[in-house]
């Protein structure tokens, strides 16, 4: 099919485009504000931040928050751990979830419905904190890095998304054509499915990476060794101290902490979110149209 060069754009389309630009512009501004606020707050005097005097520009600029944040050893330990868990966890998760999702998308696979059901069931029913801990303790995985890498990397939710994607964008005819040519399942998967699924691969990689980056719960429960603890856990300490969620009971201590924490909280937020925020632009290039699909139709 030849591509037609469409140079003329109709008036209706102009209007639509304008409308879209305006709407999108509004969304972008709305979404940018909280980021800007956090950035500005991290270099402003905490008193201004909390009194609502902060609107768009920093007040009482000082970079000491960052300086103090960098002085904290726990910040760097957390950073290192988080990077490690995120990188290896994403790798592990992709290697396990993608093949599984693809395999379950094949309508000719016997018992796939049952397997899917077994997997989905676990999204809703679980033993809870105590038995899971007992199991993990029995496996001697408490206080290990391996656990924090693999736990949370495999999620049925992701498998479902992969399956949906594969079902709707990898046509059955392609598969039949390939098998007639003598292509095995494995070869088909590696040479055809993977290249075609770049978009979903990027999405799932992003989901798993972000999940690991933001996670604190597994580290909280399954590790007590501070050397293994990720950044988010440390950040949560800083956030929780002041929300009144914990009545410390000893106001003597609260005052000292409040001063220190107020000044570094936003800096740590920026430091902990910056790397992962930068991930998406790198993955965007995978969101391109599937080129081969068109050629199959004929």
């Amino acid at each position, binding site marked *: 099919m030849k591509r037609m060069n469409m140079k003329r754009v109709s008036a209706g389309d102009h209007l639509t485009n304008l409308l879209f630009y305006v709407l999108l512009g509004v969304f972008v501004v709305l979404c940018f504000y909280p980021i800007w606020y956090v950035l500005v707050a991290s270099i402003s005097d*905490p*008193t*201004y*931040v*909390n*009194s*609502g005097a902060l609107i768009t520009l920093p007040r009482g600029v000082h970079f*000491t928050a960052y300086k*103090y944040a960098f*002085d*904290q*050893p*726990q910040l760097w*330990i957390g950073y290192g751990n988080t990077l490690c868990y995120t990188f290896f966890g994403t790798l592990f998760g992709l290697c396990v979830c993608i093949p599984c999702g693809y395999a379950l998308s094949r309508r000719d696979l016997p018992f796939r419905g049952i397997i899917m059901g077994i997997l989905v069931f676990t999204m809703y029913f679980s033993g809870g*904190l*105590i038995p899971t*801990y*007992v199991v993990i*303790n029995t496996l001697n995985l*408490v206080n290990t890095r391996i656990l924090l890498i693999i736990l949370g990397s495999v999620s049925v939710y992701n498998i479902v998304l992969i399956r949906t994607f594969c079902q709707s964008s990898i046509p059955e005819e392609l598969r039949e054509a390939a098998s007639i040519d003598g292509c095995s399942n494995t070869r088909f998967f590696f040479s055809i499915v993977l290249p075609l699924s770049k978009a979903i691969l990027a999405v799932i990689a992003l989901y798993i990476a972000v999940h690991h980056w933001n996670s604190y*719960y597994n580290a*909280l*429960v*399954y590790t*007590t060794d*501070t*050397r293994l603890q990720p950044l988010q*856990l440390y950040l*949560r*300490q*800083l956030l*929780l*101290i*002041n*929300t*009144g*969620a*914990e*009545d410390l*009971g*000893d*106001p*003597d*201590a*609260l*005052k*000292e*902490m*409040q*001063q*220190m*924490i*107020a*000044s*570094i909280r936003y800096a740590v937020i920026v430091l902990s979110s910056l790397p992962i925020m930068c991930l998406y632009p790198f993955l965007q290039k995978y969101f391109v149209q599937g080129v081969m699909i068109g050629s199959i139709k004929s």
Partner: protein
Amino acid sequence: MTKRILTLALCLILALCALTAAALADEEPVELTICTVRRTTDITSSYSEKHWVQALEKACNVKIKWIELLEGQTDEQLTALLAGDLPDIFWAGKIMKDSIISQNTSLWRPLTEEEIRTYVPNLANFLDENVDDWLNFITYPDGNIYGLAGGKMHSTMHTTQGIPYINTQWLERLGLEKPTTMEELKQVLIAFRDQDANGNGDPNDEIPFDFCDSFNKTQLINCAASWGLPMYNGGNVFYDFDDAGNVVGAVNTDAYRSFLEFFYELGQEKLINLEGFSQSYDQFTANCNADRVGFFWGWGPCNYITDSDLFLQFEAMVPPTVEGYPVKMYTANLDFANAFRNDFVITRACKNWEKALEVWNYASEPTTALEICNGERFLFWDYVDADGNFLGEDATEEDIKACGYRYLVKSYDTSTPEALAAYNQLLTDWNYDWLVGKTFTGSNTTGLVDGAPLMLEAENYETDDLTVWGVQRYVGITDVLEPANVFCPYYMNKNIVPAEAQEEFDFMTDGLYEVIRGFCATSVMNGVTDESWSSYLNDLTTYNYDFYVDFYNRLFHNEL
């Protein structure tokens, strides 16, 4: 001949080996696993780096493996620990609630009085001399003692929770007197609102009366003390005592209704900051720091305000009186004010419980205990005599005993950046909490103040320097509130609730606190009408308020 020499040599060698083995066995330190709570601001990566820990390990010949839970998030971590491998000792009074102990009694190793007196004589002797009834305090309803108490036994600071403070500078500027009645307070608040009380030229930026509902010391319901209702939200204390010492209802009385109506008026006239219901603690302190607040209930001005010139403007005052009602403030029993019943609990996983008790005994020696709590003696604190002078390095045991083990924390100048840096360096060198801020005159540096192994005699704040942290509050309590006789004498439950009774209580009162707090907030916001009041009383009945009152009555009379 050679045979004989060889046999002799062999025997000698064997004997030598046995001797060495015996010697080594004596020297082999005992391994203990201790679980405790770690402060966020702690700069060490583990307790084992701390000086006092190293001294303790050497003195008691133990090797401690610390399991450190993160403060503020201990619930899940504690659950996991209890479900998995138990440590030998729990040194975490704040998180070991009575209910955890009562529900899982076979996890702990009970102690007998004899064992305590034999193995922990430091503690037993000190307590016998200074504290009444301490054995009863730690004995559970089933007659066993599961843990040893820690924390502050006597504490004037913890006599009550929030107390009222008013900005005397503002009063002076407007030519007003400190109010003694609620009506007078209202007039003062009106003046704060309308005139330029903080002297910055703008008469409209003052907040006469601010509070933060999410922070217990500053809550509005504290103010019911002026109507004779000594309540404290943080402990879910919503009852009152009659003259005979029986527990009676507080939130269903006419006094309470009158309190709500009065505060509704205050809100309508913009004399209280109605946003206090949702604002965060940070916002509240920001308001205070910006010199916008004239009156608040709280722990102490230095907790919320960093500038010493500003916080010195505040003075404690007696809660304003209301005609027809006495003033009754929530009071914590002085004897067990900030103590944790289960500070040192030995679990059944501990193989060498004598060693564990030896550790506690070492830590219970008064000076050691204070060092664990406050840092090195002479450097960070010292004992003081009756005039407030430091005893110094020449002090003898008798001198210390004579002064009653009262101590004062040394305050360092941190007004200039160099001084602050020097002070931070000092703290860093000694592996203590890391701090930033304009001033620091804190009371502890190690993070174990809540788990200090000993009940300490009251802090001595008999100093004239009000900028020293805590002194303002101390002075407020001793000089202003105690003479006014406003403390309700019956509070601070010492009795332990048995497990089944606790369960019944929790389920019966499920939702009750939300009803009480919710009605307080919505009434101050929107007013009280006869219908809303009677519907509220109905709700109280549905949510078992009567059971709640009766329960506490039985608890205080030890009838549970």
